């Protein structure tokens, strides 16, 4: 444990306080006119008893954190320990020291000894409680952080998995068709598909990549989709040099474009143009993806499908902002805009 050092320091402090306590009490008892031997015995026996009581209450609190409303238990504990210590003094000290004057002094001071013990043990209890609850809290926080990180990783992983099997199987089916009469094209498509899949697997979510790289990867996907859907699908990509080197979280565009293609291809029966435009706006990389859709049959409320929700969630996880994605639908065109802050 990292707290070994601090706990050994703590033990040192504990012993130091005990010795101080013993010496102080010796001095006080001596000032009442008893010889040094008696004063020393009194001081050390009391200090040892007190140390035992403190150790007990400390140990007790290490394994048992009192909840709200059970602080009275601690008080009872302190009282009992103080009582035991007082009786300890009452029985042990006469065995070690003799003299009527000392016996009288001892019995007269029992009440005050009890109170002092009670305060000392109570003080110890308080310190222990604060100490251990602080440790607990730290551990809780650590665990919470870890859980959060795990959940976040899992979430990102799942979002990644949205790369639907549909796409994969349909692509394989297209390859199956091409093999017969256009083997060269089939071969080309296999290479595109494997490059695309490899890129998807390799990418690290936490990584920021230049837009150019992301578009290159996206292009593989678009080329495959174009083979599948023939002339029905066309794409327009515009991105200048400055945007090309701007950074964005990897695989962020993919689900947006997928969504655009899905909406475009399955929501209309005509030809579909999906356009992707990127530009810099101050410190933001702004990317706009547009696709045709049919307002008559699309569910307007469900306009942001799972894919887009995932993008929004990722943007939130990475930049802690909820205003980086927006969607518009008008004139049969569905537009998704994302803004990526450049750090």
């Amino acid at each position, binding site marked *: 444990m990292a707290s070994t050092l601090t706990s050994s320091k703590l033990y040192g402090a504990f012993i130091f306080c005990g010795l101080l306590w013993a010496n102080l009490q010796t001095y006080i008892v001596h000032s009442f006119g008893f010889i040094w031997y008696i004063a020393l015995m009194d001081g050390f026996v009391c200090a040892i008893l007190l140390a035992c009581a403190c150790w007990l209450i400390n140990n007790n609190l290490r394994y048992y954190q009192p909840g709200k409303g059970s602080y009275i238990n601690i008080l009872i504990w302190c009282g009992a320990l103080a009582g035991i210590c007082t009786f300890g003094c009452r029985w042990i000290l006469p065995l070690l020291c003799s003299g009527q004057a000392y016996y009288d002094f001892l019995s007269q001071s029992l009440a005050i000894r009890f109170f002092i013990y009670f305060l000392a043990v109570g003080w110890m209890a308080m310190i222990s409680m604060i100490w251990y609850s602080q440790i607990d809290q730290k551990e809780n926080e650590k665990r919470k952080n870890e859980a959060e990180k795990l959940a976040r990783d899992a979430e990102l992983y799942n979002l990644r998995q949205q790369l*639907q*099997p*549909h796409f994969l*199987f*349909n692509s*394989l*089916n*297209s*390859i*199956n*068709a*091409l093999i*017969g009469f256009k083997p060269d094209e089939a071969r080309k498509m296999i290479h595109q598909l494997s490059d695309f899949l490899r890129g998807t697997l390799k990418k690290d979510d936490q990584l920021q990549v230049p837009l150019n790289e992301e578009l290159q990867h996206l292009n593989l996907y678009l080329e495959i989709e174009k*083979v*599948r*859907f*023939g002339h029905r699908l066309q794409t327009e990509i515009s991105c200048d040099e400055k945007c090309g080197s701007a950074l964005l979280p990897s695989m962020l565009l993919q689900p947006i474009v997928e969504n655009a293609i899905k909406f475009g*291809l*399955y*929501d*209309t*029966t005509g030809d579909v143009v999906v356009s992707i435009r990127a530009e810099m706006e101050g410190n933001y990389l702004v990317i706009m993806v547009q696709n045709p859709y*049919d307002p*008559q*049959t*699309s*569910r307007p*409320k*469900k306009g942001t499908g799972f894919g887009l929700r995932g993008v929004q969630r990722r943007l939130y996880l990475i930049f802690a902002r909820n205003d980086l994605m927006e969607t518009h639908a008008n004139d049969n065109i569905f537009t998704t805009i994302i803004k990526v802050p450049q750090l």
Partner: protein
Amino acid sequence: MKRALIIDDEPLARMVVKEYLQNFKQIEVVQECNDGFEGLKAIQQYQPDLVFLDVQMPKINGFEMLELVEQPPAVIFTTAFDEYAIKAFETHAVDYLLKPFSKERFNKAIEKYLALAPSTPSSKQTEELLETAAHSPAQHERIVVKTGTKVKIIPVQDVLYLAADDDYVSVYTAEGSFLKNKTMNFFEKMLDPRYFVRVHRSYIIAIQQITRIDPYEKDAHLAILKSGAKIPVSKTGYVKLKQVLGI
């Protein structure tokens, strides 16, 4: 000679089926269709014996298209992936081919079809297939109806209520009502029970449309909708309604 249709929105996918079919001289492909609308027209025009049908297609999916056909032909589904659909096929379709499929697998499907061809699969079987498929999430979102020769897609949000109408169900929207050749039970299963309640043997209403519920005769109630329509609510319907509304 059997006449077959291929309905798939991907040209290459249609090509595979056509290529594999060359081995079967007794089956002739009469047309290829790009989507459900074309498919519907072609089915009416050619009355084919067999249809190769993709599920995921533009506008209306394969199941929705089949719903609109009066007497569905035998169907072999060709699809990439859809767990709900697969459940439906397993129980009721002639066969289903998961893309990409091999020639051997395809031949098996055709042989299976040819073996049961004389007693063409009853439309009841297709009915059951569609009912199973209705549990697929995509099907909860819209109702596809035919008005004359046109196909109309009604998002479920636009539905005010449904009423039984002899062998049909009338789907009421702000634009008017549309007949659909289905049962009330079908719609009760298909529609999301959080938003639609069957309040009466012959009525299903959209909860959001209700403005008030009045008592009416003994045990019965009347639900007044935003559109002003008054829908009878039976005793058991009232219990269900109270449950969903949380009162």
